[in-house]
């Protein structure tokens, strides 16, 4: 009961912040300037909706199928609430931290606070409205937060997760997006990240590791059966992620042009190769290719091609995707030797797949303004490694601190008894299957 009252207090604080923002308002700036392209805008808005479909229903199903039947609603709610919390935070202050005018290479200034100055005029260097760019980036922030929920599934308090989402998108995601895309130091250094290999996937994968360490293992981990309760959900979810990912990668061209087409092809080829890579090595190791393996290999391929999509051709995409399938399988299998309980393998797939993709971008980049090692620019791999290292350290340390503080203030885990009963019942008072 104490906890419930506490939760309500936090909700009312959140609500006050919202009301405040209504009164402050956000005026749309009216400016002339560059022309808007109908084709580019149509593609960007479509892509934004596609990225939303990656999260809900895509990721919600992908994760929801992998947990036990007593936690499926709770797991889907993590994805659902991520979208809602991040959408609000993003238009209030997240966007300006990421894309406001650069301050010392670290963060953006507050020029777009509460979305002021973000209007229908063309976003600099593109032919799409600034609003379209902001909402496209909003979806990226939302999926990054939602991805982390795979690590803490089946044991984290809903309220703890909501507050974590607010803090993480503000303190980790937005600065990181600024470093790479918003005019920050990594972008200036020349790090290539087409659609978010470091910003989205390494950051969520590493944050997942920190979260798994802070929260600890699920009750019964390693002794009780924790097999997926509905693999068809997971396969359908993976397939939806795949479809939506065309918005994520090809949309990142910020135009309906040749680079978008290249990223589209790279995405399709690498994902297919990722499935093949995972299934081949799984078949060799365990004697059977599995549906869960196919779904996982698709995500591994998608993750790895993300930073490279606009910079590589179809043949390089095969190597990147296949490599991701193999590497991520090994990472997921070796997890058990380390003892941390990253429930749905966010580190193994997004962290490792993202790291491989970022390095591979430095090897295979050949088009769209990037040149990698195999095409005569050995220095690119080093720059990529700096980007990877910086993201690992920042995301791990930052997430660890955020979660430790939240744990001290409100407590992150449900009680043991509530965990055994299942979070659907104990956190939401409902059951998925009656």
């Amino acid at each position: 009961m104490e906890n419930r009252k506490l939760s309500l207090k936090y909700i009312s604080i959140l609500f006050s912040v919202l009301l405040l923002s209504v009164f402050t308002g956000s005026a749309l700036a009216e400016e002339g300037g560059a022309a808007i392209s109908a084709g580019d805008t149509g593609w960007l808005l479509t892509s934004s909706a596609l990225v939303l479909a990656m999260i809900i229903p895509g990721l919600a199903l992908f994760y929801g199928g992998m947990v036990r039947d007593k936690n499926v609603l709770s797991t889907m709610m993590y994805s659902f609430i991520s979208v809602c919390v991040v959408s609000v935070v993003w238009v209030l202050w997240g966007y300006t931290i990421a894309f406001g005018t650069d301050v010392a290479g670290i963060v953006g200034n507050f020029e777009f606070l509460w979305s002021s100055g973000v209007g229908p005029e063309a976003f600099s260097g593109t032919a799409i409205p600034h609003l379209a760019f902001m909402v496209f980036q909003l979806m990226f922030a939302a999926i990054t937060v939602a991805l982390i929920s795979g690590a803490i599934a089946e044991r984290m308090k809903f309220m703890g997760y909501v507050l974590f989402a607010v803090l993480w998108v503000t303190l980790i995601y937005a600065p990181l997006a600024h470093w790479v895309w918003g005019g920050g130091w990594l972008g200036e250094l020349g790090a290539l990240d087409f659609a978010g290999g470091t910003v989205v996937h390494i950051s969520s994968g590493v944050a997942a590791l920190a979260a798994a360490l802070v929260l600890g293992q699920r009750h019964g981990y390693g002794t009780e059966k924790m097999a997926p309760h509905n693999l068809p959900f997971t396969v359908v979810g993976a397939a939806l992620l795949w479809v939506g990912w065309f918005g994520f990668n090809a949309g990142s061209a910020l135009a309906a042009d040749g680079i978008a087409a290249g990223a589209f092809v790279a995405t399709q080829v690498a994902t297919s190769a990722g499935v093949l890579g995972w299934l081949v090595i799984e078949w060799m190791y365990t004697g059977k290719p599995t549906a869960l393996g196919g779904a996982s290999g698709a995500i591994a391929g998608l993750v790895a091609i993300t930073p490279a999509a606009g910079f590589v051709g179809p043949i390089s995409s095969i190597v990147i995707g296949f490599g991701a399938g193999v590497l991520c399988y090994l990472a997921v299998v070796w997890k058990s030797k380390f003892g941390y309980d990253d429930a749905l393998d966010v580190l193994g797939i997004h962290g490792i797949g993202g790291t491989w993709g970022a390095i591979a971008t430095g090897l295979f980049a050949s088009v769209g303004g990037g040149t990698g090692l195999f095409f005569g620019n050995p220095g690119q791999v080093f720059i990529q490694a700096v980007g990877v290292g910086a993201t690992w350290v920042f995301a791990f340390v930052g997430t660890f601190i955020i979660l430790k503080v939240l744990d001290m203030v409100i407590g992150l885990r449900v009680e043991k008894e509530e965990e055994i009963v299942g979070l659907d019942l104990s956190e939401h008072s409902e059951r998925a299957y009656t």
Partner: protein
Amino acid sequence: MKLVKAIIKPFKLDEVKDALTEIGVQGMTVTEVKGFGRQKGHKETYRGTEYQIDFVPKVKLELAVADSMEDKVIETLGKAAKTGSIGDGKIFVSDLSGVIRIRTGETGEGAL
């Protein structure tokens, strides 16, 4: 009268039912059950994590028969349910002291 209970492989159910109906068995009750015998369970692997599944899905058949039918029912049932590999199941036979048809109140073999 005898109560015959049989635990069989689920995919054999239709064959067993058809064979028994053919020799004049009028009804039976079927339940989906889980259990293990010498077959033990099987292994499931999810992302490299192996789980030993001890209880295997089976079908349980229950039918009440007249004494005169006992041998024929057991023989037919056994033949229809057999694959020859481990896990084919078992037939249990026990004495049945009474049967009542609820609709008419008939008792004994007339109620079968």
